[in-house]
């Protein structure tokens, strides 16, 4: 108790209390319970979102964070994808003529980019069509 206090006093906010720990753990567990998403589904969702985003920008995979959070009994998918650099126009898929509208996602299931080969490769577990079977 007292050492906790001293640690906080001298080391600043880096030391989390067990109360902080339990709150953040609970928030994540409850978000998953409420959404009823299996880790496998979360993983393939994560992979597909990354795949799409990586077509336009280069993501810093170190700082990547992808989680479910729950607030007032509503669940949100929180993705923090730090951008390392915006890809040159030549790298990016063709934009629509105005250049302002959101570009349409190309029909091909995957596009390969030389700088991100492993992320864009097809994975048998990531569903190719929207009718995912949610039954476990």
């Amino acid at each position, binding site marked *: *108790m007292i050492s*906790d*206090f001293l640690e*906080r*006093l001298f080391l600043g*906010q880096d030391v989390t*209390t*067990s*109360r*902080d720990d*339990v*709150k953040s*753990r*609970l*928030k994540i*567990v*409850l978000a998953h*319970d*409420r959404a009823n998403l299996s880790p496998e589904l979360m993983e393939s969702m994560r992979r597909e979102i990354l795949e799409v985003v990586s077509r336009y920008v280069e993501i810093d995979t170190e700082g990547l964070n992808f989680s479910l959070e729950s*607030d*007032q*009994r509503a669940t949100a998918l929180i993705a923090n994808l730090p951008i390392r650099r915006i890809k040159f126009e030549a790298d990016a898929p063709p934009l629509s003529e105005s250049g302002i509208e959101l570009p349409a996602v190309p029909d091909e299931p995957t596009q390969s980019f030389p700088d991100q080969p492993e992320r864009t490769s097809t994975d048998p577990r990531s569903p190719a069509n929207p009718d995912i079977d949610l039954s476990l």
Partner: protein
Amino acid sequence: MGRIIVITSGKGGVGKTTCSANLGMALAKLNHSVALIDADFGLRNLDLLLGLENRVVYTALEVLAGQCRLEQALVKDKRLHDLVLLPAAQNRNKDAVTPEQMKQLAYALTKKYDFVLIDCPAGIEMGFQNAIAAADEALIVTTPEISAVRDADRVVGLLEAHHVKTINLIVNRIRPAMVQANDMMSVQDVQEILAIPLIGMIPDDEQVIVATNRGEPLVLSENFSLSGMALQNIAQRIEGKDIDFLDLDAPYDTLFSRLRRFFKR
């Protein structure tokens, strides 16, 4: 028509039966007629906490089997004449009853009693389904611990799916000194995480065990302990009164803890 309120939690041993016994007694003391249903078939406890174990003759099962009238199975409390208990069978398992049958019993009791309180067993299986079948309202009991809160959240989801409209939260066994040392979630922490309205908080208190030993719920005694007061307040909030929450921190609010809070963040 009486109100049917189920006291439930998901996790076992968090204080459902303690709350059922005390809230039943407290509401009866406030001049309401109260029927308590023990829905924990096979592991009945409510008769013990109320000190009525020696007066149980028939149980809900005999009523449902047509072996006695509902009236005959009700154990009347001698201390508070408007309180009755419908005991659970001790020798049968939780599958001995169906949700339909529980509804029949509870609805019959609402004709005569202002409050029908149902003490739910732990878990989310058949016994739980039976206990919540007739309820329009629920009191969720939890302790400030990770597994109890997780189970409580699960139960809230199930109750919502069963169209139980009014769901209120009781946080039991709070230890203010641990909360102030940041080693336990506070009532507010738990309430924010579960996001259902708070109706009461009960401190962790040795008197709860003493009262259980004697079969005399806390709210019966003349000079309340803090936990007895907390339970009495919950009964009044169930009545619809606007009662301030107890400040459980007060006795622990030392200079040291104030200093600690000052240095925090």
